[in-house]
């Protein structure tokens, strides 16, 4: 087996040095009747064989780059510069552990410090952590943090929150002692969330752009929340939007969480992604996840360490702010490198290209007979009403070689009033030809 260095002679010599007769002697603590003798699985395979097996599975999927592609709703197809994938595969980043030994992990630590600074600036917040698993898990951690900060238990979730994010909160928060008030799905952005905020509310969770693409003015929600002593948790799933729209921090958010996949990271069928988490400095000791901080070494040189660890599970055990240990280090690295390449100049332009492409697509689709655009405002994603079941129409469009978007029924099954809605995303990867192909295919399917 190519990954195992020992020859049989090595093994024999080592057993002799240990002073046992056979390898079985080293497993003597496992009761004899529990020992396994062979697994019902294939035998070892060489590289070519493994490549063939996995290549066959890969070939049965339609890659986003191979078709006109408009699927979003929480994960987005963007172009990642070649430099990013090269750098994250460097041995020293890829095969390093969590930087608990700062003298020999300054590379990872400085990257995390740069990452935290980038996220703080993007979101308009004072402090960001060194990443979470993904946007959905960051959201539920924010709800639990609000519970700790306000000593209240009621979380109010907007109907514009991604339904999967809502489900993650609804699964964990009640087990942690919270009550969750989820407002009905809000495809038209008409909900009156202010009416649900009261003196028992710990936090209000609002996504902007919403899962249906609407840009939500957070300022009045923040004002109402603060009036009654609650916190505003602002959520985003498309971080590129922050290049063009007012950051949540400037609108009064207390905790900002989101998905960072769009910058630097592949779609990968849903993971690994990178959760972003930022808040006010005064809340930092209730923040979950790892934090990197600046300090000096014994010779006075600047260096970085993981810090404020007394919040964390390996110190506080059952009193920790969260059970989180692993983060998304390598995905955060990819994010940081891509964001460094972009800079604010490149990010703003990337955001304008995304917005322009979505505007053009929305205008074209609106002209298809029977199609209605639901959004007044949007960034790179919007919702249309189709004259029929959206999932069926998407399937017909697959046959025409177009991946058209996410039927709302995929996220909100069993709700007849939502069955004709389709969430459509358009990013910088879409060309005029892609849009034309979509519009033509949809016109044919609806004809």
């Amino acid at each position, binding site marked *: 087996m190519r990954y195992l260095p020992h020859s049989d002679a090595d093994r024999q010599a080592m057993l002799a040095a240990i002073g046992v007769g056979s390898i079985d002697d*080293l497993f003597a603590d496992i009761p004899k009747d529990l020992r396994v003798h062979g697994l019902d699985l294939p035998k070892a395979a060489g590289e070519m064989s493994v490549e063939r097996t996995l290549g066959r599975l890969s070939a049965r999927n339609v890659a986003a780059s191979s078709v006109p592609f408009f699927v979003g709703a929480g994960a987005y197809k963007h172009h990642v510069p070649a430099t990013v994938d090269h750098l994250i595969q460097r041995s020293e980043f890829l*095969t390093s552990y969590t930087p608990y030994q700062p003298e020999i992990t300054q590379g990872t630590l400085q990257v995390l410090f740069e990452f935290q600074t980038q996220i703080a600036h993007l979101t308009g917040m004072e402090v960001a952590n060194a990443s979470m698993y993904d946007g959905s898990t960051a959201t539920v951690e924010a709800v639990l943090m609000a519970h700790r900060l306000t000593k209240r238990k009621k979380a109010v979730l907007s109907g514009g929150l991604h339904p999967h994010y809502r489900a993650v909160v609804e699964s964990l928060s009640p087990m942690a002692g919270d009550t969750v008030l989820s407002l009905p799905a809000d495809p038209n952005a008409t909900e009156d969330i202010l009416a649900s905020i009261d003196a028992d509310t710990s936090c209000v969770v609002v996504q902007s752009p919403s899962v249906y693409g609407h840009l939500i003015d957070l300022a009045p929600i923040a004002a109402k929340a603060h009036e009654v002593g609650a916190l505003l948790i602002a959520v985003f799933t498309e971080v590129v939007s922050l290049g063009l729209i007012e950051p949540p921090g400037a609108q009064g958010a207390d905790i900002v969480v989101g998905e960072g996949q769009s910058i630097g990271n592949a779609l990968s069928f849903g993971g690994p992604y990178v959760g972003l988490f930022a808040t006010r400095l005064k809340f930092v000791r209730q923040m979950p996840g790892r934090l990197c901080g600046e300090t000096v070494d014994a010779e006075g040189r600047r260096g970085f360490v993981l810090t404020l660890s007394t919040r964390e599970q390996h110190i506080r055990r059952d009193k920790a702010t969260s059970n989180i240990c692993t983060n998304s280090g390598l995905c955060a690295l990819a994010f940081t490198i891509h964001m460094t390449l972009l800079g604010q100049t490149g990010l703003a332009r990337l955001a304008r290209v995304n917005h322009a492409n979505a505007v053009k697509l929305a205008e074209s689709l609106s002209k298809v007979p029977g199609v209605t655009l639901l959004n007044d405002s949007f960034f790179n994603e919007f919702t249309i009403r189709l004259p029929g079941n959206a999932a069926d129409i998407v399937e017909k469009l697959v046959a025409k070689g177009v991946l058209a978007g996410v039927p709302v029924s995929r996220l909100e099954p069993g709700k007849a009033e939502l069955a004709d809605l389709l969430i459509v995303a358009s990013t910088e990867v879409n060309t005029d030809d892609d849009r034309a192909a979509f519009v033509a295919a949809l016109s044919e399917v609806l004809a």
Partner: protein
Amino acid sequence: MSMNSQGRPTVAATAATSDLPDTFTGNRALQIEEALLFEVGRHDVTGVDLDEPADFTPRLGRLARQQPIDLPGLSEPETMRHYVRLSQKNYSIDSGLYPLGSCTMKHNPRLNEKMARLPGIGDVHPLQPLSTVGGAVELMAELGRWLLEMTGMTSVALSPKAGAHGELCGMMAIKAAIAAKGETRNIVLVPESAHGTNPATAALIGFKVVTVPARPDGTVAPEAVKALLSPDVAAIMLTNPNTCGLFERDVVEIAAAIHAAGAYFYCDGANFNAIVGKAKVGDLGVDAMHINLHKTFSTPHGGGGPGAGPVVLSERLAAFAPLPFVRAGADGPVLVESEEALLPGETPFGRMTAFHGQMGMFVRALSYMLSHGSDGVQQASEDAVLNANYVRAGLRDLMSQPSGDRTCMHEVLFDDTFLEGTGVSTLDFAKAMIDEGYHPMTMYFPLVVHGAMLIEPTESESKASLDLFIATLRDLVMKAKAGERERFQQAPRHAPRRRLDETRAARSPKLKWEKPEPWTEVAAAE
């Protein structure tokens, strides 16, 4: 004494002798100092060429950004150099032995990286029509098949994103199962030697944590568990092999007692690497166990993540597996994403994450499994245990083991008795390893052992590599005993940084870069 994040002392007691280089740049040949992005980047520079879009009417409502983002950029060559230089300040498994006990730092095959980047894997969206991702769902089913055969369990929840997330998933399933029976059990038993994530997870979802005392050798006695059992006990969380590197030999009796009391057995699978192909946790009475794909199945640690923590479940818990899950169907595996798609008897407790889990890690782990095969995974476990015992045999006369010299599993535990009277602490000893070119072992964990040093060499190390490692540690022990205290307390002297002041970092946190005053940005090159 100041303590750092691991509960260990930080800066050396004596003042460090300066080893600062006498070069103009502060560099030391290949070790090059690198400023922060915010000090070298410029706001009008970008390393990405994109055409400005043609005229269009924005649809941003009143929410267009008012202030610039304040993020500098770098050109492509500058970006490359910046991050290459940073990378050179990191230790990695590709550059040397990484003996972190309980972390399983084994070789990361590059074939797995290549497979994760196949277009039908890396470039597939989680919400594409299911008709366009049949291969991805099949891959998940295949990974599940391997995990179930290796563990002897009934079903698997693939979606948890890391080990601690898997623990949470398992404990949520247990909480749901208890609620489904109309019970209100609220106590979880956790041995002293457990990872911090165990009690943190149990407490997160409202369980009260009760500590189980360990035997002197760190294992758990059935009597200790039985003494704590009551109708209020929901579960025990046990690591097996445990964090002292020992197989819990009474695990079956403990499981039987737990089950007889109506409670569940959660097994922390962090140390699964020792027993793959040697024992099945299903046979041990386990009800739920997470599997760290980034440990046992070699997906890269990436400087702290991402991980992946699928959870295998027994028949008693299988019905509670969260959405989404893969169900075997007559026409192949089916991805079940919503309650509307459930069959009778399927009662998921909810959802752990937005999508289907860490697909990028699934494919790497499956690539690892296919490469090893049933014979290879067993050989890997045997070699991992062989290597740990070889290190033990090479050091047993000089270093002290907390419960005497006995066979260990995949990791060997020493305490600091052998350093008594030398003035050298476990931390000092570990930092001296850095100067010798090694990453330190896990220190001060498990908490049940004084000055613990937990060494897990993994199966990836050759005999020659282990011989040099053993010789190095023997030399260090001799130097400590010979009174060379300075060497240890000053260590590391040759790393990119000397010991860092962790107290200062925590007392006045600087968690992002701030402009010093006055600040003048370097003008962009034309």
